[in-house]
């Protein structure tokens, strides 16, 4: 299914947001790396899907009713076998918190290698149109609001300056003995989202907000591990 069809389908189903799988298809179509994955309906399909992917895997519930999957117990990481995966699916379907929710299916994904968590976001400003945002994951964004915004389209220099504007910018260089994160990889993602030919300008009327949270950034690249696109 192409991106236009995915967006039309979500609208026709009266959804407020793209599901995670659709969101990642959208990102992938703009050249942003996403984990290799499969969507399955239930525990019966776990073994076949597991065989096509490289463990360890992560399992995520897909439901329009659940905003924060991990808080609701809808995420299980580090699955090393098909049996473990099928068990996790059954447990989720039976958990009191999830039983009432509409469940579209389950997203089974390869786990991204470790790295620095970064948030890339977007919001539609009533005056200036789409804005792109970057921040470092965790407390940097959530508590300190250490983020930088730019109006789309951004240039490569704008994207580099966004990272330099962050108070926690030193973290990307590998503070406290950690490995550095590739700033070029983040800049590339920012341009694919907010650049001249980027996702936000190509879909200026489609989305009100978007989040890639987290984008896992290693020394060599960046992978979008979760994605959320709120339809306008």
């Amino acid at each position, binding site marked *: 299914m192409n991106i236009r069809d995915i967006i039309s389908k979500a609208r026709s189903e009266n959804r407020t947001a793209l599901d995670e799988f659709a969101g990642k298809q959208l990102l992938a179509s703009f050249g942003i790396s996403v984990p290799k994955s499969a969507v399955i309906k239930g525990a019966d399909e776990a073994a076949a899907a597991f065989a096509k992917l490289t463990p360890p895997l992560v399992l995520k519930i897909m439901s329009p009713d659940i*905003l924060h999957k991990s808080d609701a117990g809808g995420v299980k990481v580090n699955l090393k076998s098909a049996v473990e995966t099928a068990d996790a699916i059954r447990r989720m379907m039976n958990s009191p918190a999830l039983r009432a929710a509409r469940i579209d299916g389950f997203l089974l994904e390869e786990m991204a290698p470790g790295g620095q968590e970064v*948030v890339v*976001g*977007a*919001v539609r*400003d*009533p*005056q*200036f*149109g789409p*804005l792109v*945002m970057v921040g470092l994951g965790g407390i940097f*964004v*959530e508590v300190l*609001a250490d*983020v*930088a*915004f*730019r*109006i789309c389209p*951004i*240039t490569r*220099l*704008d994207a580099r*300056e966004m990272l330099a*504007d962050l108070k926690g910018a030193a973290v990307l260089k590998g503070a406290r003995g950690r490995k550095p994160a590739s700033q070029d990889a983040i800049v590339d993602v920012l341009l694919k989202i907010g650049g001249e030919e980027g996702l936000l300008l190509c879909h200026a009327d489609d989305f*009100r*907000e*978007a*989040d890639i*949270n987290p984008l896992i950034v290693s020394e060599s690249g960046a992978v979008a591990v979760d994605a*959320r696109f*709120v339809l306008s």
Partner: protein
Amino acid sequence: MSAQEIIDRYAPLFMPKTVAVVGASTKGAALPNIFIRRIREFGFEGAIYPIHPVAAEIDGLPAYRTLADTPQPVDYAYIAVSAAQIPAMLAAAAGRVRFAQVISSGFGEVEAGKELQQQLAAAARAGGMRLLGPNCLGLYTPRGKVTFTEIAPREVGTVGIVSQSGGLGTDIVRRGMSRGLKFSGLVTVGNCADLGTNDMLEFYLADPQTRVIGLYIESAQDGRRLFEILRAAHARKPVVMLKGGRTRQGLAAAVSHTGSLAGDDRAWVALSRQTGCVLVDTLDEFVDALLAFQALAPRTQRPTQRVVLFGNGGGASVLATDYFARLGLDVTPFSQTIVDALAALGLPPGTSITNPVDCPVGTLQQEDGRVAEKILDVVYASAEPEALVMHLNLAAFVGRAKPEVLDNLMQAALRVQAHYPGKAHFVLVLRADDEPELLARRREFRARAVALGIPVYDELSNAGQALAALQAHERFVQSRSGA
């Protein structure tokens, strides 16, 4: 539209040959009467056409029934009558008015007037004119010898202003005037029913008379176009922006982190970072920054970074060093070589010869200010700062030093400047309290400095802010010059 087309389009606004005034009364007390008096006093040489439904004459000028009845077509119409009657008046202008500025309020700024504002805009289109306002105070254009303000510089300057607020526009002219700002124009745009900030910005960018642009914005009428105009301008003219109402919006609607973090302010900061326009927070900072850009040619190859402070007042220098550092300006101590060179001048005790250079009045007045010249010569030759701030605490001079010392000091600084052209931005700070004698000296001395092209600030912190604004512009242009 080419730059020439933009200039031609707005020529009748900034250099009107005919001005119509609607709302003047035969008793001569209304705002439009005051406007007629002001532009006559200001030297307006074109025809003034009072418009009045019955009077034959207003303020000694023949009056006309409607905008369509004037002997010549109207370049600029100043309109201050009750809101409800204006749309019909504009619609009947029969293409004989180029620009109409509606001063009256009671339009889109109040809920009940929103529809009337739409009618006003439609009427202006039907009448074949472009509209400024409503809900504004007027226009100040020294090249056209028109002003809405009580006092304004007659000289045509290089600073072009657009203000959404009329009252603040008046403040900008008055305060700017007392600080030595010279304007290429100031337009109050009010509710921007037709023409707005973006249109005037486009004019100032095209206008060769304008070298510096100042914007007071409360709400962007079309933020996207503002962004695109500024981006396309590549900061070729410095733009200083004072933004009112930088509050968060849409918080309630936010459903994700990004939404809740995206206050309005983020977009304005982004606009500034992406287009190089300098965002300031207060009227003082606005005027201070405009003054720096008016007087000092930005040096984009060597952005302002290292600053030398020179003057009297040790504590003030220390505080300023801290403040400048927080603004991203370096007041770093001189190297030993420079200290040695200054020591060789054999200055009196109590003179601190590192950076900041702290000189008691006794040192400053030696040899009629020649000592200051020697110090500055060493500083320019060897320390090579990007900016030199000379600060004088007037309380220490008045009554204690010969009156000509201040002049001698400034002349000394100018001679050094002339000896090292383009080497460092030179800025003067004249510190004083409210003592009438000090204020009088400051006013007199400021006027002389301004006439010589030196920007003068009241405090070191103001000078620091202004240099930081200059630095932001210089750095932006430098960072984009290779692209």
